[in-house]
């Protein structure tokens, strides 16, 4: 099929494009940029924890108010962890996993020419830059950026005088809108635009994951948007949704009456717990696609993994209260949330066992994407298992709001989501840009990241077991933390090394964009539809619209001489 219309001009082709592939790449570049920023904030934070009160002279120029003389003040530390969490979750991981891979892969994997609503898709991307600018503007406004944690619990967030907190709220309202528009598009596209023969049970597992992710976004994000608007009203026009009567802040009596601080926590976690699954399901899906390719073996338990995604999405809507066991919520509710939380671990365990089953008796090629996928499995297991400690309400009494939680969430979101993202980037980079990433540099990046990730994050569990609270500027205040110096310094050194080795990834990425080896259509000899068209695919994706005859994991099939059978090859 040739395109009758004129080739779009530069601006329409690369900037205000409605092509899902361009939009996917835009999400990817935006997400990676924010990943760098978020990582730098984390390194500054680690500096204060490893070397409390020691000056970093060059920082005086960059943040004269936050680090006068290069020495960090407590307010700035609070800004750092707030913005680190916010940028990583909302502007790096979700845009990369859901925005970039969702947009890029959905039409290609189902054999469609584009998304169902291309213009809506373009809007969903173009809400991100203003949202990011408003968020980052927080650093330059009166009172500095938001400093109430990425969870922004009121009253603290509502009574703070910083304009940065208002920026935070407005920015996330934009971002939530973007997510909702994207999700509508994903669901509609997957339901309506599948190629002939592409039944739901022939969808690659990434698509099952993205489909359930989109459903989660549709159900949960409007709740966050509503909560953000209510908090914005409390903060700016003096309503009392979350603020009770009798507050006395800085010696001044506030006029609020009748609000409930816990209401915010319910609404916030009603979104933000599903958000954890929004950040891990797509990575699980991509790993489920990458393992079979490099084990040259069908995925073990296709339906089990697909339905486990659905189960995670459904059960994941009923566990938000496990963030609130010590919040003053009725302890009876704690019991029910404990049981649902225990059960939500099961589908993740099922997936892990199926990934092991896929490797069993395979023919395993340790390429860069495969290494990251195996790293994902290995690290996600730690993230998942440590979650069981917090699920147990009595154990949570001790470890809640300690570094144990910080360790757990980093094993899920870095060990899981980010290794998944690295795997996905290494795997689909040749499709996106027509060139392969350098394997040698890719492997070096993997091994160093794997090493320094663990030496940075694993000791967090020890700090947590020792009772070190999260979000404290200076742990040396406390007698029970007196022994934590060497561990904290080791983590800080590791964190800086972890940050430094990411340079390998970014150099490899940029160099390979222009100088990488030409990939050809199907460098990994994979079966799914995106590999059956050119790299990068043309506008409209397929020269001829494909018809699907097989499932997505026909590797080493006895029916064909090669060890893979493309989904669209008629036998």
């Amino acid at each position, binding site marked *: 099929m040739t395109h009758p219309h004129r080739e779009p001009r530069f601006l329409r082709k690369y900037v205000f494009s409605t092509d899902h592939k361009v939009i996917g790449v835009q999400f990817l570049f935006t997400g990676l940029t924010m990943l760098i920023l978020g990582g730098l904030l984390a390194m500054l934070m680690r500096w204060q924890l490893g070397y409390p009160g020691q000056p970093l002279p060059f920082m005086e120029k960059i943040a004269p108010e936050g680090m006068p003389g290069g020495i960090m003040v407590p307010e700035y530390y609070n800004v750092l962890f707030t913005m680190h969490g916010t940028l990583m979750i909302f502007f790096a991981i979700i845009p990369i996993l859901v925005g970039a891979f969702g947009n890029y892969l959905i039409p290609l994997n189902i054999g469609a020419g584009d998304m169902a609503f291309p213009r809506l898709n373009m809007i969903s991307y173009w809400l991100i830059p203003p949202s990011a600018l408003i968020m980052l503007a927080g650093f330059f406004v009166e009172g500095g950026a938001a400093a109430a944690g990425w969870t922004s*619990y009121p009253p603290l967030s509502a009574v703070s005088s910083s304009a940065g907190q208002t920026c935070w709220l407005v920015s996330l309202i934009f971002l939530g809108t973007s997510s909702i528009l994207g999700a509508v598009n994903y669901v509609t596209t997957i339901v309506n635009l599948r190629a002939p023969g592409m039944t739901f049970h022939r969808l690659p597992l990434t698509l099952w994951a993205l489909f359930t992710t989109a459903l989660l976004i549709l159900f949960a994000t409007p709740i966050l948007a509503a909560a953000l608007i209510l908090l914005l009203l409390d903060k700016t026009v003096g309503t009392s949704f979350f603020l009770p009567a009798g507050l006395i802040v*800085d010696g001044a009596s506030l006029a609020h009456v009748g609000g409930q601080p816990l209401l915010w926590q319910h609404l916030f976690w009603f979104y933000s717990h599903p958000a954890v699954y929004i950040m891990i399901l797509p990575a699980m899906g991509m790993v489920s696609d990458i393992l079979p390719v490099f084990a040259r073996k069908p995925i073990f338990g296709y339906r089990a993994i697909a339905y486990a995604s659905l189960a995670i999405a459904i059960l994941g809507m009923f566990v938000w209260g496990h963030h609130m066991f010590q919040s003053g919520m009725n302890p009876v509710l704690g019991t029910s949330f404990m049981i649902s939380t225990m059960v939500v671990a099961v589908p993740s365990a099922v997936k892990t066992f199926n990934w092991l089953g896929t490797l069993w*008796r395979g023919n395993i090629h340790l390429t860069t994407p495969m290494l990251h996928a*195996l790293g994902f499995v290995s690290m996600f297991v730690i993230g998942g298992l440590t979650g069981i400690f917090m699920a147990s309400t009595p154990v949570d009494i001790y470890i809640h709001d300690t570094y144990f939680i910080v360790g757990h969430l980093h094993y899920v979101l870095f060990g899981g989501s980010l290794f998944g993202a690295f795997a996905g980037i290494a795997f689909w980079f040749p499709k996106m840009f027509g060139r392969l990433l350098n394997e040698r540099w890719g492997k070096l990046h993997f091994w160093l990241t794997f090493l320094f990730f663990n030496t940075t994050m694993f000791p967090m569990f020890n700090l947590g077991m020792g009772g070190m609270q999260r979000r404290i500027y200076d742990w040396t205040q406390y007698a029970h933390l007196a022994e934590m110096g060497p561990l904290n310094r080791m983590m800080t050194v590791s964190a800086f090394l972890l940050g430094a080795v990411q340079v390998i990834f970014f150099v490899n990425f940029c160099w390979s964009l222009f100088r990488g080896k030409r990939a050809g259509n199907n460098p990994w000899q994979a079966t799914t539809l995106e590999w059956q068209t050119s790299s990068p695919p043309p506008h409209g994706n397929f020269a001829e619209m494909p018809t699907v005859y097989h499932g997505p994991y026909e590797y080493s099939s006895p029916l064909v001489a090669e060890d893979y059978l493309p989904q669209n090859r008629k036998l």
Partner: protein
Amino acid sequence: MQLLPDNFSTTGGTIDHLFYVILWITGIAFVVVQVCLLLFVILYRARPGRTAAYIHGSTPVEIIWTVVPTIILVVLGFASQGAWANLRERVPANATRIEILAEQFAWNIRYPGPDEVFNTEDDVTTINQLHVPVNQPVVVHLRSKDVIHSFFLPLLRVKQDAVPGLTTRVWFEATQPGQHEIACAELCGLGHYRMRGFLTLESPEAWQAWLTSQGKQRVAEYAP
């Protein structure tokens, strides 16, 4: 191997016990998965002439590895429930009552005094100085003036948020005399990290004597 610091409360003992039970269960799962992963990558690495098995799965195996973790996890949930109900709902009737009003960045502590009734002349108030008798249950009623705080006694395994507009409570029983600290575990602003108090665990007699001495020199009015 001791991973958790020493514990100085009866209530903390059950928490530590559950922690180690979960550590064993998850530890075994961890080792099994990591060993399988490593073993499979080594055993089934690509070599010339090797082909992968053409297997799509196995329903009996799926059922086993779905049902077994479900049972273990649900049992773990119910095993935790006893301790949870005990720690959060069954406050002993004879527990000594203490009230704490948290504010940025201090703990206002109030004792009912000899008449054991609050809001009377003999109430004793302190700032950041919590004295508690050992070997008898104590219940702390928590409130907050401004933002959310969290009353955290790391070495007694006690943690409970103090929420403006609500009164939350938490009980514990200390086991031996000593000096420890109160930490704030919920981000409460720029001074969160130094919202530190001092906990003195002492014999009931010493505690009574301290209370009496404080009552005589009472200065601060306990703000509502």
